[in-house]
Structures are given as structure tokens and as C-alpha cells.
């Protein structure tokens, strides 16, 4: 293979990488508004276990966006849990107390334990007992 051919090939590969990167980032970019819209309409909501959950069927964009967020949350919970010497589930549940107490807006969906999905009313969400010290 001549030097020119090699250079041409390298340029092609670089171009493909840039193109793919752009597609991935634009897709990731499209997920966040999709997830926010799903949170607003209640098809996605916060759960007491510290993760986002699906309240019914959602689009592929919303699903992948929520799953990406949950994977990142789990990584963060795992880090903190190791630092504090607690289980990942405990760290996640402690965060769940906070999201239910301060992140869920009126009208948005939430779920406690394995219970049914509910909509937040005007008042604060009644939290599980172990959240007694939230806020």
C-alpha cells in the first residue's frame, strides 16, 4: 500500500469517527429534553429506590435517556456507598428520599416501594419512615 493510500484511508477513518461521535452526541442531546418532557407528563417519574421509572410505555428516546441516567446514578451511588461503607441500595434509597422531597414537582408522577404510581399534589409527598430526616 502506498503512502498516499494510507493517508487517504486515515482521513476516511477519522471522518467516520467524527461523524459517529456527532451522531452519538446529538442523540444524547435529544434524550434530555425527551426525558424532561416525559417527567412533565408523568410517563416517567422518580421512585423511592433512587432511580427513574416508567409509568406506562414511552418512546425509544425516552427509554434510552432514562436508562442512561439510571446507569450514571448507579455509578454515583456505588462510589458514595463505598466511601460511607453502606450498600448501594441504601445510598440509592437515601437519594430517593431527597428526590421525592425536593425534586418532584406538583402533578409529576412518583412511586414509593413497589406501590402504585401517584401524582404529587399541592403538599409534600408522604415519605417512607426511613426518610424521617430528609430536608
Amino acid at each position, binding site marked *: 500500500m502506498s503512502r498516499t493510500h494510507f493517508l487517504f484511508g486515515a482521513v476516511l477513518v477519522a471522518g467516520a469517527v467524527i461523524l459517529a461521535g456527532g451522531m452519538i452526541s446529538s442523540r444524547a442531546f435529544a434524550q*434530555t429534553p425527551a426525558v*424532561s418532557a416525559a*417527567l412533565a407528563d408523568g410517563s416517567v417519574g422518580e421512585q423511592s429506590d433512587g432511580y427513574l421509572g416508567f409509568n406506562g410505555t414511552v418512546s425509544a428516546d425516552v427509554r434510552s435517556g432514562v436508562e442512561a441516567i439510571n446507569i450514571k446514578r448507579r455509578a*454515583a451511588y456505588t462510589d458514595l456507598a463505598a466511601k*460511607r461503607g453502606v450498600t448501594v441500595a441504601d*445510598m440509592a434509597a437515601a437519594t430517593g428520599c431527597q428526590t421525592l422531597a425536593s*425534586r418532584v414537582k406538583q402533578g409529576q408522577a412518583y412511586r414509593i416501594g413497589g406501590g402504585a404510581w401517584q401524582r404529587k399534589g399541592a403538599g409534600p409527598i408522604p415519605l417512607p419512615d426511613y426518610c424521617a*430526616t430528609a430536608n
Partner: protein
Amino acid sequence: MTLETILGVPIAKKARFPAMLATLAVAGCIQVRAPDKPIEINLNVKVQQEVVVRLQQDAKELIQNNPELFPQ
């Protein structure tokens, strides 16, 4: 009832106080017995509560520092 009335003999004023103490000591003898079982103090509740408080603080900071993970 004082020692004077019990004994029927006057006691010097200075000696009265120790004498009263002696009466009390005899009358109100408190028996302290070592317990048969070891005394257990359960600290689990307090420790658990502290862990919860600390985790809530960590959780709050996590949310504040990573808003992209907690969209609204």
C-alpha cells in the same frame, strides 16, 4: 427518731451529726448487688440514625453537583 432517744443518753452537740448519719446508714441500708446478666446497651438505633443523616447529606450534594442526573 434520733440516737439520743434510742439510747436515752445525751450526745454532745458536735457528735450529733455523725450519729445521725450512722442512724441513717443503718436504717436506709441500700443493697447493691451485681446483676447476674451482663448489662447490654443498644447503640444500634443511634448509629443507624447517624448513618441516615449522613447519607441524606451525601444525597443532597450528589443532586446539587450532578443536576444532569436529576432532570426535572
